[in-house]
C-alpha cells in the first residue's frame, strides 16, 4: 500500500470493505441457520401434537364403542385380564397411547391413559467417575 501525500493508504478502503462484507455475510448466514432450525423445531412440535391428538381421538372412539357395548375393532392391540381391558393406539413409530380400562358396573372406567415410549434405547450403565487417587 502506498501512502499518499494526504496520509490515505491505497487499498485500505478495499480491505475494510472486504472485512465488513465478511462480517455481514457470517452474521446473515448464522441468523438464517438459527431461524431455519427454529422453524424445523416448531414444525416437528406441531406434527407431534397433531399425531398425539389423532391417536387420542382414535382411543376415545374405541372407548366410546366399548362403553356402548361394542366389540373392539381389528387392527388395534387389545389385551384383557380379569375385569379389565387394555389397548394401545400408535402415536408415531416411537410412541403408543396406552389405555387401560376397568369394569365399573355396566360401563368402563379409565384406569390409565398415557403415552408410552416404545423406541429402542440403550441405557449406558457405566459411568466412569474418578474413584480417588491410586493407592
Amino acid at each position: 500500500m502506498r501512502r499518499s501525500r494526504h496520509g490515505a493508504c491505497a487499498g485500505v478502503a478495499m480491505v475494510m470493505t472486504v472485512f465488513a462484507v465478511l462480517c455481514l455475510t457470517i452474521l446473515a448466514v448464522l441468523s438464517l441457520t438459527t431461524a431455519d432450525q427454529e422453524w424445523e423445531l416448531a414444525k416437528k412440535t406441531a406434527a407431534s401434537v397433531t399425531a398425539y391428538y389423532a391417536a387420542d381421538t382414535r382411543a376415545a372412539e374405541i372407548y366410546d364403542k366399548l362403553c356402548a357395548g361394542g366389540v373392539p375393532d381389528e387392527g388395534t392391540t387389545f389385551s384383557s385380564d380379569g375385569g379389565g381391558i387394555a389397548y394401545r393406539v400408535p402415536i408415531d413409530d416411537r410412541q403408543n397411547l396406552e389405555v387401560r380400562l376397568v369394569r365399573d358396573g355396566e360401563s368402563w372406567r379409565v384406569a390409565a391413559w398415557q403415552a408410552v415410549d416404545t423406541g429402542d434405547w440403550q441405557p449406558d450403565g457405566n459411568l466412569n467417575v474418578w474413584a480417588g487417587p491410586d493407592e
Partner: protein
Amino acid sequence: MRNRRSAIFLTELLAAILIFAVAAGVSIRIFAFARTRADDSRDLGRAVLAAESAAERWRAGDDTADARYFDRDWEPCAESGAAYTLTLAASGQTAEIRVSGGGETIYTLSVRRTGGGS
C-alpha cells in the same frame, strides 16, 4: 502525479462502496427472510400451545368460548385488537380447533372427548 493518485484512490473508494452496497443489499434480504422465518416459528409454536390449551379445556367440559383472541404478543385480548384468532367448532363429541392470523390458518387440531364412562 498527485491527481493520478487521487484518481486511483477515488476509483478504489467507489469500487469499495459498490461492493459494500451489493453485499449489504443481499444481507438485508437474508436478515429479512430470517426475521420472517423466526416470526413464523414463534407463531406456529404459540398457535400449537393455544390449540392444545383450548383442546384440553374443551375436553374437560368447558364449552364457554367458541373463539379466543390474541394480540401481536399472543396475550389474550378483545376481538377489536386481535391479531390472532382461535376458533373452536364443536360437533357432538368432536371439535375442530383452528388458529389463524393475518388471514391465514396457522394451525388446526382435531380433538374428541369421550362420551361414556368416566
